[in-house]
């Protein structure tokens, strides 16, 4: 009897020797941003192979969607600016356009991908940001004729717009879209556990062994994390911040997150972070929905969060006070909190 117990014990031990509890990590620079993929519980070969599939798909997206480099979208923008219509033979891109229209309506146009021209005016359409402030008259003129997604007419596979100022900039959408693409590729290839980080936007697939994937949230003013959070299977996290793309002039900060109502960069927040539960377009939502929370006036932020059904959000305001939802407050783990009293929970 003891023999049997001993042998049983030994077998259990030997089964514990797994080769698959390693995490394989790959990084690449595509789409003007760093992509970081971690795969858990697969062989090195498979991890590498599937990651390459994902990188290839992103390269494809880069060629389709890049806001200012040569791409399908920039061709479309050019056609529209000359008053012409443009044919898109790709059903996926048509779907993307429609989704952007839908999302901008839902966010009361605080998410407005149609104002690429304004963003370019502020100098953000270059890899090296051109540091210039457009004249107030130019900005005013733009705001009066503010292009919106509803200005885009989509008939079958032809797009056109009466507003020549219309210029599509998917910078606030594409990373989220790429996350959803990565999710599909991983699913199709039977990879159950991975963490995909595209320019800071992250989705968690499965778990990291016997624990959840843990994500650090960047401090808006320090090169370290302000907090960390368990990212449950299928959940995504997205942040909009004034520390990513911005320039300083006369000690004032101008970020790439422009308020379509004023035409100026929104300055009431340092960063906004949201968690989105699993859904078909959760990646997109984690990218897009952080924008209205960042850009909208302070008194409207909570209302917008409710309207968009965002249960998990955190807004670090310009005065370093923090607005955080009750649900988010329960799951966030502070690493570098300056002042407990500066937190308001909703």
């Amino acid at each position, binding site marked *: 009897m003891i023999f049997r117990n001993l042998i049983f014990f*030994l077998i259990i*031990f030997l089964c514990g020797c797994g080769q698959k509890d390693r995490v394989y990590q790959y990084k690449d620079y595509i789409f003007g941003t760093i992509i970081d993929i971690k795969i858990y519980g697969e062989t090195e070969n498979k991890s590498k192979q599937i990651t390459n599939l994902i990188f290839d798909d992103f390269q494809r997206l880069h060629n389709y969607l890049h806001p200012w480099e040569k791409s399908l979208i920039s061709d479309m923008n050019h056609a529209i600016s000359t008053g012409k219509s443009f044919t898109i033979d790709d059903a996926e891109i048509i779907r993307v356009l429609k989704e952007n229209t839908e999302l901008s309506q839902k966010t009361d146009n605080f998410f407005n991908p149609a104002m690429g021209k304004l963003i370019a005016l502020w100098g953000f359409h270059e890899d090296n940001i051109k540091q210039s402030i457009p004249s107030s008259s130019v900005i005013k003129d733009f705001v009066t004729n503010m292009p919106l997604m509803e200005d885009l007419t989509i008939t079958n596979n032809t797009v056109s717009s009466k507003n020549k100022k219309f210029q599509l900039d998917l910078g606030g959408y594409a990373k989220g879209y790429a996350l959803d693409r990565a999710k599909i590729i991983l699913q199709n290839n039977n990879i159950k556990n991975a963490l995909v*980080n595209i320019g800071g*936007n*992250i989705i968690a697939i499965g778990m*990291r062994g016997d624990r959840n*994937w843990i*994500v650090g949230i960047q401090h808006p003013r320090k090169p370290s994390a302000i907090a960390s959070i368990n990212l449950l299977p299928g959940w995504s996290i997205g*942040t909009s911040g004034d520390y990513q793309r911005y320039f300083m002039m006369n000690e004032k900060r101008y970020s790439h997150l422009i308020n379509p109502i004023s035409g100026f960069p929104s300055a009431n927040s340092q960063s906004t972070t949201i968690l989105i539960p699993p859904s078909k377009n959760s990646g997109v939502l984690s990218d897009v929905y952080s924008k209205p929370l960042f850009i909208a006036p302070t008194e409207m932020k909570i209302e917008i969060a409710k309207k968009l059904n965002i249960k998990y959000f955190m807004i670090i305001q310009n005065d370093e006070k923090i607005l955080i939802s009750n649900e988010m407050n329960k799951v966030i783990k502070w*690493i570098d909190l300056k002042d407990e009293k500066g937190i308001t929970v909703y």
Partner: protein
Amino acid sequence: MKKVLPFIKTIKLGDVLIIFMLMGLIIFIINKSWNTPIGQYLKIEKNNEPPKIISLNQIKEEKIAGLLGDSNISIVDGKARFSKAPCTKKYCIHQGWINKVNQTIVCLPNQITISITDGSESYDSVNY
């Protein structure tokens, strides 16, 4: 080697089984420890304080105040050790250099612990 004969007479089948099982266990555990990667960061812990994490990729002498006094920690070439300690037995210094993830040296009297970590223990990725 005449002592070997009585030994062989004593030993029985079951004994051999147990010896092999224990050796198997030891090999398994050694395998686990050896497959630990070389770490990038040093974690310094004082009792009841949040850990301080610093990079191993530098040459530095770090002074940490503990219960008895200051302990000096040397970081050179991706390795770390206690170079000076106010304790009496200096066990911590005698442990020498560490550089593999999870390797730890404790100075009990001064209540300071240094351990190697690959930095990812706090989080897997950063959202920005």
